[in-house]
């Protein structure tokens, strides 16, 4: 090998950067459409729920205007849709239809590095897209707060976990239409049980417990805390998101290794 340096360690930054550079090269070809929907979707939701519902049926929730409540909650919606779904579909398409991983793994890159790089890339993207609803909510009347500067970090950590979830799912299904079960049975219920559109403390106890173990709910609470004031329990919430992400990372690595190496 000419002109190259090489080491055999695990999780080499050069390998991870190489895989991410492939994602960046591809993203440059389709970023406009993704950015368009990521910006427009929260506007539509805020108009429909925040302005429409807030102006007609709901005065406010927990001392917040409905626009403030929904605007901060929508961050979690943006994060899951910018992480779990692209990870599921992107991974499956690259593995099954484009044979991309065959090419990458023929280079000195291991499945663990591929998974880590793709999670990082999706996490970075989703941390940007996750901030759009907050910025748009500010346009609609939400007061900016210094704590909001931490929101990209909360989004990044949560999106990493959901990217790991999406990759693990993609590495476990046989056909792409099996994603329907995952979106219907997992993603949609978790999205609705995140406290985005309605507070969970009015729900039956079982659903409240389910919401509390939902990483999206923890993200929503952290974003609201960043906007309206932190409490000590928020550290626990953040720690739970880190634990969620670490667990999904290892599961994704394990599933993808099994899928990619015969």
């Amino acid at each position: 090998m000419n002109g190259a340096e090489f080491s055999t360690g695990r999780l080499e930054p050069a390998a991870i950067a190489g895989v991410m550079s492939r994602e960046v090269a591809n993203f440059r070809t389709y970023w406009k459409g993704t950015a368009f929907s990521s910006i427009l979707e929260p506007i539509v939701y805020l108009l429909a729920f925040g302005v429409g519902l807030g102006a007609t049926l709901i005065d406010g929730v927990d001392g917040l205007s409905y626009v403030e409540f929904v605007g901060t909650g929508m961050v979690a919606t943006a994060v899951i849709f910018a992480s779990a779904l692209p990870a599921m579909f992107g991974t499956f398409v690259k593995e099954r239809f484009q044979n991309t991983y065959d090419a990458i793994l023929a280079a000195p890159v291991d499945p663990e590095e591929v998974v880590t790089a793709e999670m990082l890339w999706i996490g970075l993207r989703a941390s940007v897209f996750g901030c759009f609803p907050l910025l748009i909510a500010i346009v609609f009347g939400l007061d900016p707060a210094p704590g909001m500067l931490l929101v990209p970090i909360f989004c990044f950590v949560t999106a990493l976990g959901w990217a790991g979830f999406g990759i693990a799912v993609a590495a476990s299904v046989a056909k792409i239409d099996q994603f329907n079960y995952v979106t219907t049975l997992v993603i949609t219920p978790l999205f609705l049980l995140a406290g985005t559109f309605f507070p969970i403390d009015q729900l039956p106890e079982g659903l409240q417990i389910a919401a509390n173990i939902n990483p999206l709910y923890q993200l929503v609470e952290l974003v609201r805390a960043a906007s309206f004031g932190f409490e000590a329990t928020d550290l626990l919430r953040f720690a739970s998101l880190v634990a969620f992400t670490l667990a999904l990372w290892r599961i994704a690595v394990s599933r993808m290794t099994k899928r990619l190496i015969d």
Partner: protein
Amino acid sequence: MLTDEQRPCAITIRGAVKRFGEITAVDGLDLDVPQGICLGLLGPNGAGKSTTMRLLTGQAIANSGELGVLGHKLPEESKVARSRMGVVPQLDNLDVDVTVEDNLAVYARLYRVKDVGAAVDRCLELARLTARRRDAVDKLSGGMRRRLLLARGLVHDPELLLLDEPTVGLDPQIRTELWSLIDGLRTRGKTILMSTHYIEEAERLADEVAVMHHGKVIARAKPSQLIAEHAGRETSEVYGPPDRLAELRALAESEGLRVRPAGPAIAIVGSERSPNGTIPDDAIRRAATLEDVFVLLTGEEAE
């Protein structure tokens, strides 16, 4: 000059077995590839060629046996081995929306090439795609894409190149174009392991041919030696109604000659050894080919 036996081996495989459930894709494979030669791995579909390639890239792990690439033991040292070999896959897995130069640059980074720009320029020149460097891959013709795939496998200037069915499904013109590129690499001293089921490809490019069947190598030599050893000098093709062909076949086989179907004809292999009268006057006599050897060794039925 070193003989093949004296050269150090770029690839060493001893007794490799790879099973997928009930199916044994590679079945006790022994294979040495000396440095600096082009070895053609010839075999019908399902012979185990692609699985062998995947074993060498660490994308499949052998159930048993020993594998080494450029002195590195697999799968333990697969990552270092992969850094020193290039792979050109059977299927086009380029990023179609990305530009030609970005496709190359990504892989230069994956292979830790220091001067990515210089490597990209060199590969563009090799693939004669410099003028198309900023075009998206989906704007390229099939031949250009294949050249780009080959160039991508060479972006880190590897010592060993694995070509998995490099011209499968291509037009004859594009195939010839790729052959000259591969031949250029061979003459520059790269070690090449090329799996193919195109006999002409193996015959033209390979210094040696290993015929693979049911997961193991059943014959190996220079193409001319394989032909001389297994097919003799001459093959006679006879066309005619099925009854006549069946009768001729029986006669030739009773005289110890080997016969294989050749489309609507039968090919009597080694016909120079036939007693007078066995080969009819209307037979077309031609030199024996590697195809004769291939069909004789691997059987008549397609898998």
